[in-house]
């Protein structure tokens, strides 16, 4: 039985092709990216570009050349937030943010460079798009929001947000959504997007990146060798090179590429997930954190018990049922303040496409029994 319900932290299991591809790179093929023209390097280089092209399909863009590969989504968010925000700027974000967005913003604020504030939101964190216009200022330089909350799984509507902010750049953190929820950066008009490879995309840790529609708006975060424009001491002006100094995580990218090509068919349906949520809601000892509208629900939710702390819950789930869950604030104190669960946090369950309906039923029973 697969009792790992912490896929929002990092997904497990991965498609077997992931480890096979990484092992093959380490043990057989080797090679780095683009620094020379012998077959070993060409093999790796072609594969990196294949991965970029596959990612473009997953995120709904025709411009894979603007996908920059980084170590993770946090690095990508720091690259874009720090690279875009200039002195005197004003940034809007949501009440559901992870610290990967909140901390860079707060750092820039403490440096005296920017101001930032929260957009108005519904009780489940959904941005009230009709109230966005009132928050905009002449110096608003960026709107940065997570696509899917890592606390309650509520998914925003980036297309509607973009319509409300017009020409102001929109940065979407797709860490929890890309791979498990539709992402359409071109259709939505998203300007910048960060993603990770090791969550819903089922790739290895150490992979992720950014989609940067307007590279001219972003200053590089890391400076160094790119294998291009090497006669200059300045970073290249073109992407992806401008933001990819240093040797990439070639082994990890081999794994991510394999994950993208071997995406499993989900073993449970949306109806199965909906039934799980409805079952959990029946226990009045819990408050269930999820989207108000199931159409905006990603594959995670959390619970707050009326008397048991989140850590006590997680311990009991593991010791009594073998279920691995996540207790606490999930690096998202803003979200917990909004939802009313700060500072104690909650206990989160996040699904994998490998979970079967029987395993969801087992989880529902466990939640019920622990919460009696």
């Amino acid at each position, binding site marked *: 039985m697969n009792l790992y319900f912490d896929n929002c932290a990092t997904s497990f299991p991965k498609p077997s092709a992931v480890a096979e591809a990484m092992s093959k790179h380490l043990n057989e093929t080797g090679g780095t990216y683009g*620094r*020379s*023209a012998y077959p070993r390097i*060409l093999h790796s280089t072609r594969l990196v*570009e294949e991965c970029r092209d596959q990612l473009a399909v997953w995120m709904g863009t025709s411009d894979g050349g603007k996908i920059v590969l980084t170590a993770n989504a946090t690095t990508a968010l720091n690259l874009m937030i720090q690279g875009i925000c200039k002195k005197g700027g004003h940034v809007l974000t949501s009440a559901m943010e992870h610290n990967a967005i909140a901390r860079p913003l707060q750092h820039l604020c403490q440096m005296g460079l920017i101001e930032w504030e929260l957009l108005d939101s519904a009780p489940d964190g959904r941005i009230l798009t009709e109230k966005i216009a009132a928050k905009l200022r002449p110096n608003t330089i960026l709107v940065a929001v997570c696509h899917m909350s890592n606390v309650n799984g509520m998914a925003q509507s980036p297309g509607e947000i973009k319509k409300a902010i017009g020409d102001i750049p929109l940065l979407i953190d797709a860490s929890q959504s890309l791979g498990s929820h539709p992402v359409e950066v071109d259709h939505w008009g998203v300007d910048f997007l960060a993603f990770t490879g090791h969550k819903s995309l089922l790739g290895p840790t150490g992979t992720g990146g950014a989609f940067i529609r307007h590279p001219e708006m972003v200053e590089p975060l890391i400076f160094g060798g790119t294998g291009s424009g090497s006669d200059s001491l300045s970073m290249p002006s073109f992407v992806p090179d401008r933001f990819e100094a240093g040797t990439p995580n070639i082994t990890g990218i081999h794994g991510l590429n394999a994950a993208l090509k071997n995406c499993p068919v989900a073993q449970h349906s949306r109806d199965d997930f909906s039934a799980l949520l409805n079952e959990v809601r029946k226990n009045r000892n819990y408050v269930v954190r999820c989207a108000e509208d199931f159409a905006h629900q990603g594959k995670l939710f959390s619970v707050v018990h009326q008397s048991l702390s989140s850590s006590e819950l997680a311990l009991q789930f593991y010791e009594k049922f073998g279920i691995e869950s996540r207790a606490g604030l999930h690096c998202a104190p803003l979200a917990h303040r909004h939802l009313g669960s700060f500072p104690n946090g909650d206990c989160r369950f996040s699904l994998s496409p490998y979970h079967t309906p029987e395993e969801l039923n087992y989880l529902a029973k466990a939640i019920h029994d622990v919460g009696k």
Partner: protein
Amino acid sequence: MSENREIMLFQNIRQVIKAELWCVRVKIPVKVIPVPKPYSTECGLCLEVSNVDADRLEVFAGENGMVVRRITRN
């Protein structure tokens, strides 16, 4: 008509790989080589094709927003 070889220099590695992939797809004989020193101090890659195929490749590059520089190889 004699056939010369041409070096096609691109802006970055991704463009080299995309162009190489296209050449393979349309059956243009192509070779990925290091950028020869006389043409650049870069440590990157470039393509070598016939001058006849270079015309087609240049069109493909232009249609896909790539900046390409052609150099005839003696």
